[in-house]
């Protein structure tokens, strides 16, 4: 090997190290008055949360049932994750910005909060003015500001926080809450059901095509508080909605727990598109701090010809445990899952999807792209199940992993269960590192290695990025850059 090549190899390695060592850029703490209840979880805390939020009796009962069930459960350990012991009694289960009356215009919104959004480049005004997106901003646990609601109301679209929905549309909430993710579903679902703070509620009436993309930006803000969102989306017959969820979180040294539930109900011929960009604080280079993201997301395609599409870009969180799923109950229903998961430094991700085919001729597509760097562990875990009655079903799964260092791990755990003879299920997976020929080709054309890696990673993730709505795609690409790219790529 010539001296020149030697230097090149060293500089490449250096480059990759530099990139992957990139510090988290969005770490900052917003100084807002927050109201925090003492740490710990017991029935009184559950009752307190319910009371503070002025909830009806049935919801309190729901919470208590969930809490009692949670007590009987143990934290799941089957994932390919190394989760430190979590002391659930050391977490505060409710934090709300000290209430002033709900702001009527942007002027009334706390300037500190607005600054936070400005720092993230997602200022409410800009969002409102430029992209026409209705934003339901969740700062810690209580909805602060919802925009465009009036405009949506004209069409009969309901887009508000869950707590408001409980008050204003109790019948709808009662009908659908817990109908897709039961409180008995798993450990974190039970925990969330007991203490969920707030989240979004979306109802699209029959035949309505929601004219704008609905969006929620979640932020975890107060130190030492867990955040337990609960999102419920219902698309009635022939309805359509595209929902965006994005997260960034400030830098913290203490691990924070995030256990959300997303429930989606899709009726006959309706379509829901759910996109996520997740960028919780991943912890520093040595794995100190970072968010634990244990989320239960599930959609029920109840109606015939219904369609649910999950798209996610996962770059953040110290630990991610997340399997957005589709229960394809309606005949000819369609489920989709597109995912890019990036892990760096000491991050761990165990993510994937479940496609449960119950309806005849239901179809599903899974495309999962994992990128691991540093000392991270990135797993795809997915289940495809075709019930006996679900004839004529079709599934295609592709999961690729890209390895950027020799100390990281990329794993694939597909579970495939087919119970009839008229369905076709395919699964493909590959694992490899960045193709040196491609790097060489780029170099040869005058593209520096740094840019070339960026190019290749972006190209690799393109298939999923393309599925994101325009507004999100830009931010997602930026995130990929922050997470890996500017130095690896």
């Amino acid at each position, binding site marked *: 090997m010539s001296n020149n090549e030697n230097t090149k190899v060293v500089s490449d390695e250096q480059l990759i190290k530099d990139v992957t060592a990139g510090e988290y850029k969005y770490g900052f703490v917003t100084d807002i008055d927050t109201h925090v209840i003492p740490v710990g979880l017991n029935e009184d805390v559950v009752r307190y949360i319910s009371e503070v939020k002025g909830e009806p009796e049935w919801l309190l009962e729901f919470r208590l049932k969930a809490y009692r069930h949670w007590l009987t459960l143990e934290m799941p350990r089957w994932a390919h994750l190394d989760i430190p012991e979590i002391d659930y009694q050391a977490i505060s289960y409710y934090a709300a910005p000290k209430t002033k009356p709900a702001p009527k215009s942007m002027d009334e919104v706390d300037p500190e909060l607005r600054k936070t959004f400005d720092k993230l480049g997602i200022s409410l005004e800009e969002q409102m003015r430029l992209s026409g997106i209705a934003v339901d901003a969740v700062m810690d646990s209580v909805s602060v500001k919802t925009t465009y609601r009036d405009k949506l109301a004209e069409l009969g679209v309901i887009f508000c926080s869950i707590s408001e929905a409980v008050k204003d549309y109790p019948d709808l909430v009662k009908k659908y809450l817990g109908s897709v993710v039961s409180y008995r579903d798993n450990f974190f679902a039970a925990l969330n059901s007991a203490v969920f703070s707030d989240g979004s509620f979306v109802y699209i009436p029959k035949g309505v095509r929601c004219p704008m993309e609905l969006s929620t930006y979640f932020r975890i803000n107060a130190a030492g508080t867990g955040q337990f969102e609960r999102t419920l989306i219902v698309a009635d017959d022939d309805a359509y909605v595209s929902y965006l969820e994005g997260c960034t979180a400030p830098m913290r040294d203490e691990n924070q727990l995030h256990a959300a539930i997303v429930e989606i109900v899709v009726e006959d011929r309706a379509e829901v598109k759910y996109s996520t960009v997740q960028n919780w604080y991943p912890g520093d280079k040595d794995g100190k701090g970072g968010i634990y993201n244990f989320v239960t997301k599930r959609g029920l395609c109840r109606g015939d010809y219904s369609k649910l599409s999950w798209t996610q870009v996962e770059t953040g969180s110290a630990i991610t445990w997340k399997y957005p799923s589709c229960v394809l109950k309606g005949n000819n229903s369609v489920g989709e899952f597109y995912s890019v998961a990036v892990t760096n430094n000491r991050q761990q991700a165990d993510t994937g999807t479940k496609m449960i085919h119950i309806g005849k001729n239901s179809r599903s597509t899974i495309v999962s792209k994992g990128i691991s760097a540093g000392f991270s562990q990135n797993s795809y875990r997915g289940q495809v199940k075709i019930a006996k009655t679900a004839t004529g079903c079709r599934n295609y799964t592709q999961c690729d*992993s890209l390895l950027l260092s020799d100390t990281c791990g990329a794993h694939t755990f597909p*579970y495939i269960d087919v119970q009839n003879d008229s369905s076709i299920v395919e699964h493909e997976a590959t694992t490899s590192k960045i193709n040196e020929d491609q790097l060489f080709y780029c170099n040869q054309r005058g593209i520096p290695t740094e840019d070339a890696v960026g190019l290749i990673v972006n190209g690799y993730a393109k298939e999923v990025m393309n599925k994101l709505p325009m507004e999100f795609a830009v931010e997602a690409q930026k995130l990929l850059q922050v997470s890996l790219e500017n130095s690896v790529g």
Partner: protein
Amino acid sequence: MTAINQYIELFKATREAIDAHSAGALNALRPKALEALEGARMPVKGDEDYEVTDLEEVYAPDYGVNVNRIDLGVNPAEAFHCDVPNLSTCLYFLANDAFFAARNSDKNLPEGVIVKSLRRAAVENADIVEKYYGQIASLDCRPTALNTLLAQDGLLLYVPKGVVVEKPIQLVNILNSATPLMAVRRLLIVLEDDAQARMLVCDHTQNKQTDYLNTQVVEIFAGKRAVFDYYDIEDSSDSTHRVSNIYIRQQEASNLMVDGITLTNGFTRNNYVVDLDGDRTELHLLGMAMASGRRHVDNHTAVNHRHKYGTTSELFKYVLDDQAVGSFSGLIKVFPGADKTEAYQSNKNVCASPEARMYSKPQLIIDCDDVKCSHGSSIGQIDQNALFYMQSRGIPEHEARLMLMQAFMNDVIAGVRLESLKDRLRHLVETHILGGSSSCQDCAGACPTTKKD
């Protein structure tokens, strides 16, 4: 009471007899196995890697174990009239789990090669048996631990350094009993550096009404640059339950072919655990299953790449008919430092009836970046377009179907490195698809490598 307990009780009650009819290393390991089993239960449905298979149920019936080594009247020669001249294999038998050598069995063996009863070997070749017995068969695996607790006999194959055994070694396992019986079989295979051999193991059942639990643990040690083929063909009966655990350790530059073929069975669980314990190893792991009726075929593989330049190619194919249940769970694990590993895993299945069920779980765990790994899994049906095309060319439907099925199985058969076995397998697959008994009726014909004059 768990299924294991009844065997622990049996062991405690008959320990002296068990030890007396066995020897050396086999007896020495029993206390450890007992320790591993005490308080444990067999894997049940839903345990990781046992998604559709319930071993607690399989071990629950009260099977007899022939601890006193009573001659059950099995005559391998009667079972197997293949003492034809020019026998091209070196033929041995395990009747239930007792070892028999045929006349002339050893005639074709090169000097230094040992094929004998494991029980005898534990005395006569104690150094070999002590060195290898139980070294890789993990007692954490309950069926393996139970086998270790009760095993009294089996077979030792030892090929010394540099020796090449030309003739395939054939082992025929025969199950024959008037009462429900558990066979506890143990195979120990050691190839020293540069040795080469091929082995063909066939499972057969006589007295097909009886329920059998056919358990085996196989340990294969391949030295540096050793080449070894291991073909395991099951052709038993509906009332036979088979639990097989095969453990393999490969040293530098060794080359192994392991092929598990399930033709007729009742319930089958095959575990393959392979440790690639040196650089530049090569492993071919093949499997094929054709199941109809209410049969159950479950293959589990775990391949551990610990060193550089290892290659694994894994291919399992199933055809499931009627209410048959198939399961495949495979794991390829690449450890840190195992650079330049190439590992491919593929599982393809055809569900041929509305009630057939297939469960597939091909997994990769990769902790190293300079690797090429992929896995694929598909479950589907015979291509209707191809079927239509062939019919439109004047090929009757059943023949077209046969051709497509054969084509489907062809890449597993093509991987076989024993020409005569290839032909035999093609024939067996064909008869199986045609609905005829695929079993090796006239056993002479069944010895794939046997040529009648």
